[in-house]
């Protein structure tokens, strides 16, 4: 191309040309949906530990310490072409400790939690791959994953997508998921009540609508439905019947579950903070219904530091077939479980997270983030909206400490 200008490029021309160059290659202002345009990597390590079972809730001689899980997660996300991107999530977990087994009544008839004798040492490995294809006003994605533990294998697939309306102010999203699981309890040959090999399938569907309210706030509401079919009981739990009879955990073999989640995000420029609020209502055919309210406050301090306190309140009603233990006369129903996770209780969670961001312009411009977070969760019968007559003795309190690092190229 012939160089413009005469033999001496005037200063004016140089100034205008330099200034005009800055106007090149401005990203096509988000008229079309685009894949992510950088390579994102992140790693996180977290330790989850449950509080010991209080003496009042357990047998004096048995194990009172509970579960501990150490989790490592790694993630990679990158664009493949102008229209396609992908993400890969890998998780490795080491679990150990004792978990609730069955309840027995004490002298007054109040239930006490008996913990599993030998402590479990297990490992879980999980891989999840997602890929999305982007169109002018829509995105379609495919998901596939595999999870394996000593006694549990799961293969899952999903499809999700979203499409935009009203100049991308309204978004309709949807998804379908399938999961095929196999349960092979580790001690099936030593414990007579253990099932040997079981399978379970879960089919889920969700649809959501999001709307931009103004330049700084959004709202989204979505409905989900899931259908579980197959072996839905817990192979390591039992139900005690007065008279030293032990039944295996016996839950229905189907479950229809519905949930409705509404969430809201708003940025408050004056204080450089963003607030997130959400509420979920859940209901299923086992008789469980629950409410979850979460709030988080993302407080930024300049461009590099963000501190986020958060709070969560959860309350659930027990499953129809939940019992602390069975009476002498035996079960009155086909299904029964004394798993504390199906009882009536409420839980409060408190979290605090700090995130520090910095850039390093070495070989290429990399944005780094260092994260540390702590969460405390406590559950109790009288935290429930409608307190139960009898609180499940095995209700858990836990804390999680996690650290993470991420780099975006």
């Amino acid at each position: 191309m012939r160089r413009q200008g005469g033999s001496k490029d005037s200063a004016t021309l140089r100034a205008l040309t330099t200034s005009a160059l800055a106007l090149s290659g401005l990203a096509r202002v988000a008229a079309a949906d685009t894949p992510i345009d950088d390579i994102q990597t992140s790693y996180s390590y977290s330790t989850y530990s449950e509080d010991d079972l209080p003496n009042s809730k357990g047998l004096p001689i048995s194990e009172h310490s509970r579960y501990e899980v150490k989790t490592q997660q790694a993630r990679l996300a990158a664009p493949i072409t102008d229209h396609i991107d992908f993400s890969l999530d890998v998780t490795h977990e080491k679990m150990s400790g004792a978990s609730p087994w069955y309840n027995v009544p004490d002298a007054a008839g109040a239930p006490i939690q008996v913990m599993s004798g030998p402590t479990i040492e297990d490992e879980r490995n999980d891989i999840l791959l997602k890929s999305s294809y982007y169109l002018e006003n829509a995105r379609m994605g495919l998901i596939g994953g595999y999870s394996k533990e000593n006694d549990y294998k799961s293969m899952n697939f999903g499809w999700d997508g979203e499409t935009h309306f009203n100049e991308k102010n309204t978004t309709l999203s949807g998804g379908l998921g399938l999961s095929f699981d196999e349960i092979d309890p580790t001690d099936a040959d030593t414990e007579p009540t253990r099932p040997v090999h079981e399978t379970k399938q879960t089919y889920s569907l969700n649809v959501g609508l999001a709307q931009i309210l103004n330049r700084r706030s959004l709202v989204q509401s979505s409905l989900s439905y899931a259908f579980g079919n197959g072996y839905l009981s817990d192979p390591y739990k039992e139900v005690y019947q007065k008279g030293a009879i032990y039944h295996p955990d016996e839950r229905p073999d189907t479950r229809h579950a519905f949930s409705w989640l509404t969430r809201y995000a708003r940025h408050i420029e004056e204080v450089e903070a963003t607030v997130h609020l959400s509420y979920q209502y859940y209901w299923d055919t086992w008789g469980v219904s629950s409410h979850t309210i979460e709030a988080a406050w993302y407080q930024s301090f300049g461009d590099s530091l963000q501190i986020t306190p958060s709070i969560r309140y959860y309350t659930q009603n027990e499953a129809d077939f939940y019992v602390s233990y069975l009476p002498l006369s035996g079960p009155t129903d086909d299904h029964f479980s004394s798993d504390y996770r199906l009882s009536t209780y409420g839980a409060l969670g408190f979290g605090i997270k700090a995130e520090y961001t910095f850039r390093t312009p070495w070989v290429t411009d990399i944005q780094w983030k260092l994260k540390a977070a702590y969460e405390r969760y406590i559950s109790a019968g009288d935290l429930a909206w409608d307190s139960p007559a009898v609180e499940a003795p095995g209700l858990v309190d836990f804390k999680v400490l996690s650290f993470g690092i991420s780099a975006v190229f």
Partner: protein
Amino acid sequence: MLLARHPFRAMGSPCELHVYGETRALCDSVAELAIAEVRRLEQKYSRYRDDSVTTSINRSAGDPAGVTVDEETARLLDYAATAYASSDGLFDPTSGVLRRVWNLKSGRVPEPNEIEAVLGLVGWSRVHWASPRLILPHAGMELDFGGFVKEYAADRVAELCRAHGARHGMVDLGGDLAAIGPHPDGRPWVVGIRDPRSPEGAMASVRLHTGGIATSGDYERCMIVDGVRYTHVLDPRTGRPVTGLRSVSVVADRCLIAGTATTIAMLKGARDGALWLDELGLPNLRMNDSGEISGTLANAEAEAA
């Protein structure tokens, strides 16, 4: 390779996109993107739309907090600031407010005191611009992107077409042109420069391989009162229409630069404008009030770029 021509109307002018593609469908899809981009810029910087950037900036005039602008607008303002500094204050995006007293359709020449009053609202030097914050200190001040957004749009269309694989073509936005690339056989686009004295005649033709060409003329919008021609090109320092040059055309790497050059040359007038163009060093063509044509493109078949 077939040539598809897509005429459309935008930014108040008749426009046309010429693009070469392997199939009709490819040409059409590139054209759709190109036209959408022109419309996007038209809506974004329109003075008349409630939801445009221009309107939100103008509404903030007098507000000490000003407005925060997006990246594209910030860079356009940086460009306008550079052009203002390079032209001794002649290229001024705040001069649009002078339209209020110079209503060319009315056929009425404003009184000097009317001009004085509005002149108090003109002057980029009064504007506080520290990217991305823009503050127009006095209520009534206005920013007008109209002086350069059309040329910028032409460059954007050319860039967009090239990014989508088109290598040969040209976009004409009401006389401001940007080349995507020469004809497939290497031939340049032949652009005729309108003769201000006769609407249908060309006073020269320019051959364009790459880059852009823009033209400013006093014949586009003007009024004649008592035999005196008043053009729409107003000097931001005096508030009065310029005289001296009837038409200026400049060829540059970018239509935006070409357009800035023609505007500044027109504002400098017959003698200073011609000198300035000569010093700038870009291929150009100009006609003064007496009908004299000069400039490096003055030969009828000049090769431009």
